[in-house]
């Protein structure tokens, strides 16, 4: 059986079933989430064994047909997507109340998942555009589900920005096809010659994707869109959707436009990343609402990932470069788990207190001990304290900065880390300021446990057991 096609076909079929039978949408959606998780983890397991997978829907093969492809990088992101999306789906089944419009949530949620898996598996530049359209539409529609004017307005802006990003990307794809006569990534990479055409295509495609990935200074649309959505949607938007756009930038720069990645270009991305780290963390510290804090922290975390570009460019192929790439993926995964856990926990705080104004969150630790613990754990990972995965990631980032002589990036990482510590402890300081000890750790297991498990994964699992990730990213597979 073609596991790559199944990882896209299973969530698609489940989405159709949930759309066709709205009365049973939740049951169908949960069953679909479970089946999609199994299909996704199967891809990861096969990549673990074989190193890489490729299949050709339609059987025509490149260049006439198109292909699906998975390597360690896509397998790691697919596994992260599966676990985060499953936990969020379980949370959503307890979070939505009647009248909260869960009916359209499930089909759109599964379409979003289809598009995410499709993006991570695509090996064709135009197919990526189609996947991004599906991703952008499903994400914007999900973001508006709450129905408040602020959420609808932010989602409409998100939709338009996303369309602008897709169109810019498509313009680059059109140039590539005109110049090289193919859309398959491997064939384009083999034919690519540096020059004005390839350079313009790279700028257009990277620019469009940077808009979707909310890379500073193109992040302006993210905080309102992510902060006003309902909690499960915020978690997916921040942890997964932004990551998909970032993954594509990484994929294009590493595998397709390799001869065009000059030190200047890599430094520009690094510089924007450093600005994002400082600016995003600063705005998170100043944020008055918990969800806005989490959204600005996403801007900063995308910045950290961009800091890896100049270092990867300066490191010759070998163990050091593989370590660096693994550290990048580890930070992306850690942020995915931590941020989704944080948004889910913030949603519970908001539901229980009726608001998420940080100044008035006193007593949260007494009302919702497990949720407060989740926020603390997720915060640990966002700061990058040991034993979280981002501790290892930041450690390798700074080591490499010293080794390649680009010490100035360390200043950005240090500033970001300090600011992150400040904004996490600002929330926790408020949450713990009432006296009586809590009676029960868990109040509502169905919604609190997914958040807790996600946050715990970001700290304990990814930090203490990061070894398998290195093996997964090996070109030849681990086993």
């Amino acid at each position, binding site marked *: 059986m073609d596991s790559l*096609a199944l990882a896209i076909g299973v969530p698609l*079929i489940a989405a*159709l079933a949930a*759309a*066709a*039978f709205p009365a049973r949408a939740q049951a169908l959606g949960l069953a679909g989430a479970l089946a999609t998780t199994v299909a996704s983890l199967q891809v990861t397991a096969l990549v673990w064994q074989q190193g890489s997978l490729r299949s050709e829907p339609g059987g025509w093969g490149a260049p006439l047909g198109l292909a699906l492809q998975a390597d360690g990088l896509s397998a790691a992101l697919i596994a992260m997507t599966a676990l985060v999306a499953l936990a969020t789906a379980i949370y959503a089944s307890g979070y939505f109340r009647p009248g909260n419009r869960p009916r359209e949530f499930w089909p759109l949620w599964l379409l979003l998942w289809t598009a995410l898996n*499709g993006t991570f598996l695509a090996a064709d530049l135009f*197919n990526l555009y*189609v996947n991004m359209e599906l991703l952008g539409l499903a994400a914007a529609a999900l973001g508006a589900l709450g129905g408040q004017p602020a959420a609808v307005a932010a989602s409409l802006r998100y939709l338009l920005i996303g369309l602008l990003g897709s169109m810019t990307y498509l313009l680059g794809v059109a140039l590539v096809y005109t110049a090289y006569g193919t859309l398959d990534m491997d064939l384009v990479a083999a034919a690519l010659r540096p*020059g004005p055409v390839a350079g313009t295509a790279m700028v257009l495609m990277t620019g469009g994707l940077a808009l979707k990935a909310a890379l500073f200074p193109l992040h302006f649309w993210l905080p309102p869109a992510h902060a006003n959505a309902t909690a499960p949607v915020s978690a997916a938007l921040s942890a997964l959707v932004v990551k998909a756009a970032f993954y594509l930038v990484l994929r294009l720069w590493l595998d397709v436009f390799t001869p065009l990645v000059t030190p200047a270009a890599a430094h520009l991305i690094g510089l924007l990343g450093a600005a994002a780290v400082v600016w995003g963390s600063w705005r998170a510290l100043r944020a008055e609402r918990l969800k806005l804090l989490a959204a600005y922290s996403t801007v900063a975390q995308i910045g950290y990932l961009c800091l890896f570009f100049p270092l990867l460019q300066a490191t010759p192929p070998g163990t050091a470069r593989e370590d660096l790439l693994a550290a990048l993926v580890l930070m992306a995964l850690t942020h995915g788990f931590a941020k989704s856990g944080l948004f889910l926990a913030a949603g519970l705080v908001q539901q229980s207190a009726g608001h998420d104004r940080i100044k008035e969150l006193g007593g949260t630790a007494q009302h919702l001990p497990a949720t407060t613990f989740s926020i603390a754990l997720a915060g640990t990972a966002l700061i990058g304290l040991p034993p979280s995965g981002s501790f290892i990631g930041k450690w390798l980032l700074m080591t490499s900065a010293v080794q390649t002589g680009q010490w100035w990036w360390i200043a950005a990482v240090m500033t970001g880390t300090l600011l992150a510590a400040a904004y996490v402890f600002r929330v926790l300081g408020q949450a713990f300021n009432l006296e009586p000890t809590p009676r029960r750790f868990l109040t509502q297991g169905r919604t609190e446990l997914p958040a807790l498990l996600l946050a715990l994964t970001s700290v304990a699992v990814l930090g203490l057991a990061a070894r398998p990730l290195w093996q997964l990213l090996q070109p030849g597979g681990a086993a």
Partner: protein
Amino acid sequence: MSRRASLAVSLLLGLLTLLLLWVFAQALAQQPGPRLAELAATELPRSAVSNPVTAVLLNYRAYDTLLELAVLLAALLGIWSLGAASPGYQPAGPALEVMADWVVPLLILTGGYLLWVGAHAPGGAFQAGALLGAAGVILRLAGHQRAGLPSESSQRLLAVSGTAVFAAVGLATLAFGAGFLTYPPDWAKWLILLIETAATLAIGTTLAAAYVGGQPPENPEGVRSR
């Protein structure tokens, strides 16, 4: 925006357009020739259709088209999630009503023709679906609250049908060992027609329902009783 600022922005956009045009000319010069079009024409006999556009959409790159249909569905679900549709227009005056009586059946007939002809001449599911959608728009303008569409639950089934049949065909070929969306040569023609028929209905329903602009009303009052 002040006049001077908008002038500066227009100037910059003009320069950007010139730059992109120059790059595009470079790209054209880099590879003169038909690119993939020649290969698409050579493989046409194996694709079970004789219209190259249909071959690209439904066979060579069928997976893209499957996702495109999912995009349409996502758009409709997004529209429905925003709440009920605003009440439609006034019942039509006699002139518009007579015109709708003439035009709507013609549109449906032409849609059916375009669907069938798509295998060997320009046409196909998207064109046929667009005509069905246009028929829905005319009905809505003439005062039919649901744009001539059935109840919400039937609309859901219709809107899902295109993607569902397409994905089911893909998974069926996968189950029979041919690979995802890889049609067996003897069946290809009929599978493509089946997919296109379902896609036409789904596209027509989606476009008309999107024009209604919200969840379809339960008991439309504007249905003309004749």
